[in-house]
C-alpha cells in the first residue's frame, strides 16, 4: 500500500510517499532529510505529537507549557485535560517541570516561559 504524507518535521512540509507493508513503512521517498524518513516511519506505525497549551496559575495568569517530547497522538486530549487540572503558583521559570510523566507517557510537561 502507498500512503502520501506531508512531513511536519519543519516548515518545509515535504510531500512524502511511503510504501507500507503490515502497518510498517518499508520505504520513504520525497523527503529532504532524515527527519522526513523518521516522521514517516513513526506516523505510519505510531503517530506522535508535541502538545502545547497553558496552565492557569493560582494568580490567574496563564503559563504556557509543552510536553518535553512527543506523546502518542491518541493521548492528546487526555494530556491536555491533565495539564488543565495541574496546580501551579507563580513564579515559574522556563523549563520548570509542571507535570512529570504525563498520562504514563514518560514525558514531562514543562513551562515554556518565565512568568512572575
Amino acid at each position, binding site marked *: 500500500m502507498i500512503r502520501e504524507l506531508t512531513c511536519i518535521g519543519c*516548515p518545509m512540509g515535504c510531500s512524502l510517499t511511503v510504501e507500507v507493508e503490515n502497518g510498517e513503512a518499508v520505504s520513504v521517498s520525497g523527503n529532504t532529510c532524515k527527519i522526513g524518513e523518521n516522521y514517516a516511519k513513526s506516523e505510519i506505525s505510531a503517530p506522535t505529537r508535541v502538545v502545547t497549551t497553558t496552565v492557569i496559575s493560582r494568580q490567574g495568569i496563564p503559563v504556557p507549557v509543552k510536553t518535553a517530547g512527543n506523546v502518542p497522538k491518541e493521548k492528546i486530549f487526555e494530556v491536555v485535560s491533565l495539564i488543565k487540572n495541574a496546580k501551579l503558583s507563580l513564579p515559574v521559570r522556563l523549563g520548570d517541570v509542571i507535570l512529570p510523566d504525563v498520562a504514563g507517557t514518560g514525558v514531562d510537561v514543562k513551562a*515554556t516561559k518565565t512568568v512572575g
Partner: protein
Amino acid sequence: MREFELVIIGGGPAGMAAAIAAKENGIDDIVILERDTQLGGILNQCIHNGFGLHTFKEELTGPEYAERYAAKVYELGIHFELGAMVMDISKDKEITVISRTHGAETIRAKAIVLAMGCRERPRGALGIPGFRPQGVYTAGTAQKLVNCEGVIPGKEVVILGSGDIGLIMARRMTLEGAKVKAVVELAPYSSGLKRNIVQCLDDYGIPLMLSHTVVDIKGKRKLEGVFVAAVDEKNRPIEGTEEYFPCDTLLLSCGLIPENELSRSAGVELSPLTNGPTVDESLETSIEGVFACGNVLHVHDLVDFVSEEASRAGKNAADYIKGKPASPGVPLDVKPGNGVRYTVPSRLYTESADDGVHIRFRVTGVFKGASIVVSSGDNELLRRKGRIFVPSEMLDVVVKKENLELASGEIEVRIEEASV
C-alpha cells in the same frame, strides 16, 4: 533631549536580533523602544512549537525562542525601555515617544532600525456583509485572549481564512474544548504552511473549505451563525451554494499588513507590493540611516528568517554609524517577473554589496517542478530548481557577488515553469 547612536523601534524578534547584531558590531549606545510590558512581541502569544529549527537546530515554542534572544539582550547589557510608545519619527531621525518613566519626549538618533512588526487585516477591510455582533475576532486577538489572558472567546467556531494563525487557532480552540466547524478559504489553496494543515486541521478532523467564503453574518448583538458559499474563479459567490453554520465565534485569519504608520510619518518610501518600506541590499530605506527588518518590511512565515534578516539590518546600521561611506553609483532596480509577487530588496547597489546578496520573495501561485531564475538582461545570475513553490512560503535566494557583477540596468526575479 536624549540622544542615542541607534534607536530600535520594537522589541520583538526583529528588534532584539537587530540590537544584538549592532552591539556585537561595536555599537554600545543603543535603545530598544517597546510599547508592550515585555520583550518578545508576538512570540509571547505563539505558545505552539515549530520555532527555531534554522537558528537553534531544535524545535522551540514562541516564548522559548523569545526568551533566548531576550537573555542575550540582558547579557550584552543592551538598554531597552518597556511601555514606551513611539508616536512619530521625523525625517531628521527625531523620535517622539511617550512612556510612564519619561513622559512625552523627543529622542535623537544617528540611525534607526524599524522593527514594528505587522497587524492583522480586520473585518472592516474584508467587506463581509451583515451586522456587527459580538463574537467576531481576528485570529491573533483570540490567540492573545486564550494564551495570555486565559479567556476562551467561544464554543462553536468558524474560521475565515487559512493563514497560519487561523490554523493554529483551530487546534488551540479545539484543545480548549470548542468545536471548530470549518476553516473557510477564498483561494483555491491555503495561505498557511502545509505542516499546519496536517497537525492543526487533519489531526482533529476539521474541514478546510477551499474556494469558499463567508457571505453573511447573522446575529445582531451576539453572533448566531454565518453563511458560507462557494466562489467562482473570480472569487464571486456562486448562488445556491450557501450553507449555514451556527456559531458563536468567527475568527478572521485573512492576512497581515506591515505596520508602517511611523515609517510613513518619517517620509520613508513604501512599496505598494509589500506595504513595507522599499529597501536596498543593506535593508536601508529611502532615508539614509533608517533601516527596516522583520514583518514591518514584509510579512514572514518563519521567525528564523526574521532574526537572520534583522541581524543584517543591525550590522548594517552599525556600519553606517561607524561611518561607512554611502553606496557608490546608482542602484539597480530588482523587479518581480513571472510568478513573483514582490522582491526584498527592490534596489541593489552591486559595488557595495557583500558577498552573497539575499533576495527574498513570494510566488503568486503554486508551481511544481519549476525554477527560480534571477537575471539581468541576457545574463543569468542564478537558477534554482525546486520541487514545489507555494505563496505561503517565503523564498530566499543568495546571489554571489561575482554573478552580481554581470548585472546592469535591472535585475529580474521570475519563476520559469516546467515545460509540459
